[in-house]
């Protein structure tokens, strides 16, 4: 996006500047347990804390650095944003909470939106003044997006929305939603009846109902649409062309193509933190890490975490992936989510009797983060196609095994 590529020396200087800024400005412990991703934002205090943090980062010039200046971006080379993002991960700062805006809606609007849409939406996405949510999944056919049934019925220059969407994170705080809806019930091909909209959330006929998660907390919602009317200008892409727009959006989300605003979206737990926990927790009067059975499992987890990083590295080397080029890309979600569940579960087993504490008890390790994180890990092994479905997909598409 910029002609003047920075020199190595400039990059080094920038790296240092960024590291210093985050060291100086990253928020201190708010006194309550923070979520690990936007899907877990369950309370207002969590939300406002995270929104303020994103705003601060943006105002310091460290978000949307490679997005066009005319819409509030920095107009700078992507490499600078990447440096910032890596530093945020490294310093374990809170994530950027307007994730759907920054990684899904924003890139989509910049790529396919009208000039008006860009002007209207992009600045608020970056500043976190305008929160976005997504309306893809529906109850009863979770992973089967193409089967979306929420109706958008044309009525002159408007569409009337009826139906419901589920797992709408930040739905209560969102100003806008990206929505996949059915504008035509009678197509031969179910995909051709879908259209894609950018809709306002604060209108009559839209009700957001929080879903209590297995953690006992909130974060997801079910959104009900009852004769909610939107203008036809909310369409993005062609009427009936929603499936293509949705696929493009998911490609942005996966980072398969560029265009994300930057900043990290998730504070995943790493094995190094579990190692630290094993040094603290006691077993028979000694640190748990001195127990041989625990060491053995910890090493296996380190190997497994590193497998994922090494898979990514190897995926970029063609001669080392030519027999089954899709094997590593298609299995990342399965491996990562199952690893996450296992890591968190193991972290509990280190805590002795104190594994039974929960979020909010002063004696809970790390404020009960591990207990909550274990439960939330199921969003990875269930959401976006369960691990069982992932096994099918890999078996059939990578190994060419017959369908079940």
């Amino acid at each position, binding site marked *: 996006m910029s002609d003047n590529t920075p020199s190595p020396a400039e990059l080094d200087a920038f790296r240092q500047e960024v590291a210093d800024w985050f060291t100086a400005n990253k928020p201190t412990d708010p006194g309550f347990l923070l979520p690990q991703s936007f899907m877990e934002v369950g309370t207002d205090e969590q939300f406002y804390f995270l929104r303020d943090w994103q705003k601060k980062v943006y105002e310091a010039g460290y978000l949307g650095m490679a997005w066009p200046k005319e819409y509030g971006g920095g107009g700078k080379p992507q490499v600078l944003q990447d440096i910032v993002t890596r530093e945020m991960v490294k310093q374990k700062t809170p994530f950027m909470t307007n994730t759907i805006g920054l990684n899904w809606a924003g890139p989509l609007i910049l790529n396919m939106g009208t000039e008006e849409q860009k002007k209207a939406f992009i600045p608020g996405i970056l500043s976190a003044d305008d929160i976005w949510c997504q309306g893809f999944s529906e109850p009863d056919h979770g992973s089967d997006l193409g089967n979306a049934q929420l109706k958008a019925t044309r009525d002159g220059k408007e569409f009337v929305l009826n139906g419901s969407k589920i797992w709408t994170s930040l739905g209560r705080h969102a100003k806008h939603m990206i929505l996949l809806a059915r504008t035509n019930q009678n197509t031969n091909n179910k995909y051709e009846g879908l259209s894609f909209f950018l809709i306002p959330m604060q209108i009559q006929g839209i009700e957001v109902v929080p879903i209590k*998660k*297995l953690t006992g907390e909130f974060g997801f919602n079910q959104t009900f649409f009852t004769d909610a009317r939107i203008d036809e200008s909310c369409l993005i892409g062609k009427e009936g062309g929603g499936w293509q727009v949705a696929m493009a959006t998911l490609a942005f989300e996966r980072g398969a193509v560029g265009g994300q605003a930057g900043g990290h979206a998730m504070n995943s737990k790493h094995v190094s933190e579990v190692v630290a926990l094993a040094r603290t927790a006691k077993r*028979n009067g000694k640190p748990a890490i001195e127990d041989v059975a625990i060491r053995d499992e910890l090493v296996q987890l380190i190997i497994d975490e590193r497998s994922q990083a090494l898979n990514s590295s190897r995926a970029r080397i063609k001669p080392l992936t030519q027999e089954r080029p899709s094997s590593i890309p298609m299995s990342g979600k399965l491996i990562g989510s199952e690893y996450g569940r296992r890591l968190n579960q193991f972290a509990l087993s280190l*805590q002795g*009797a104190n594994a*039974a504490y929960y979020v909010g008890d002063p*004696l809970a390790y790390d404020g009960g983060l591990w207990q909550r994180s274990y439960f939330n890990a*199921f969003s990875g092994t*269930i959401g976006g196609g369960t691990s069982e479905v992932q*096994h099918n997909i890999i078996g059939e598409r990578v190994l060419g095994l017959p369908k079940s």
Partner: protein
Amino acid sequence: MLDTNKKPTILFSDEQEQLLEVASNFCRDRFPMSETRKRIAADEDLSRPLWDEMASLGWLGIAVPEEFGGSGLTLGEVVTVVEPMGEHLAGTPLISTTLAAQALLKAGTRAQKETWLPKICEGAIATLALSEPDGDWALERIAASATASGDTLTLKGTKTFVTDAASADLVIASVLFEGKPALVLITRDALAAGKLTREIVIDETRRSYRLDLDGITLPKSALLDADKTPAALNHIDQAACLLLSAEACGGANGVINVTIDYLKTRKQFDRYIGSYQALKHPTVDALLAMEAARSHLYYAATVFGDGIEGEVAVRMAKAQSGSALAFASDRSIQFHGGFGFTYDCDAQLYRRRGIWCEAQFGDATHHRAKLAEILF
């Protein structure tokens, strides 16, 4: 070393059979999941009438000798009551009270037994205070202390996971006294306001408290018999493992039933999801783990207290049952898909119970390590 060639045999008494049937019916009737959820939501202690009913069924005195008002049976009979309670996720002070009574029986003075055991049989709630803030499972590692000055003991330290303490008439705590582990009997009146803090625990059916001992004073007669205390602590450890195994076995069976119901009724891609081997086979594995745990449980109940053989059996039961419930409930969440991720799905309640059961008195890894010490 254990003779692994010897064929172990489970015995099951008529009393066990009767109690199992009565308790199963009672739990089905009194602890439907809707009631458990109501109690969680209201954050209430167990209703007193329900507890009194349990007392009137004689369940609090099952393993208390007749001379103290009990039935004179064994913990093997208590198992048959605890197991169905576990299946229905009942959270009652039954385990706490039974264990406290065992502590009294094993190490109480004659006066302590005569004062408290009959009251317990009639419905007094009692509990133990053994754990400490480091969460170490080694019960003999005690930081809390009692110091004597004349006839008065002054306590110091913090005990954790003191279940049902707020409604208890009696707490028996482990402390160091004159350099050795000791048990002291703390009556409700000795607990000033603020000494108990409600703990936030993962199993929401539990009522657990942190007990601040600092400054609590007791008469010296509150000490249990020092000579018998080490053996009593060992006995309590094993008794707790036995009852928690029963609770975990029941829980594993309960959550397997929750899973099966869903697998039989939920459809995806036009098929009942229970027809998919990816869900069916692990559910079978959960069943087999639970069946094995149950066999170990009732063998442990058979040989409980029988020296090494008893200790081996109860540790095996604890290891196997904890793992069985953990596996069955973890898979149950997963196999419920999106619904499994919600609070409304019962799978998470069992998963929370599973974490509780493993965290209390040692998980499978801990007990396998202890078994290795005995066996090799």
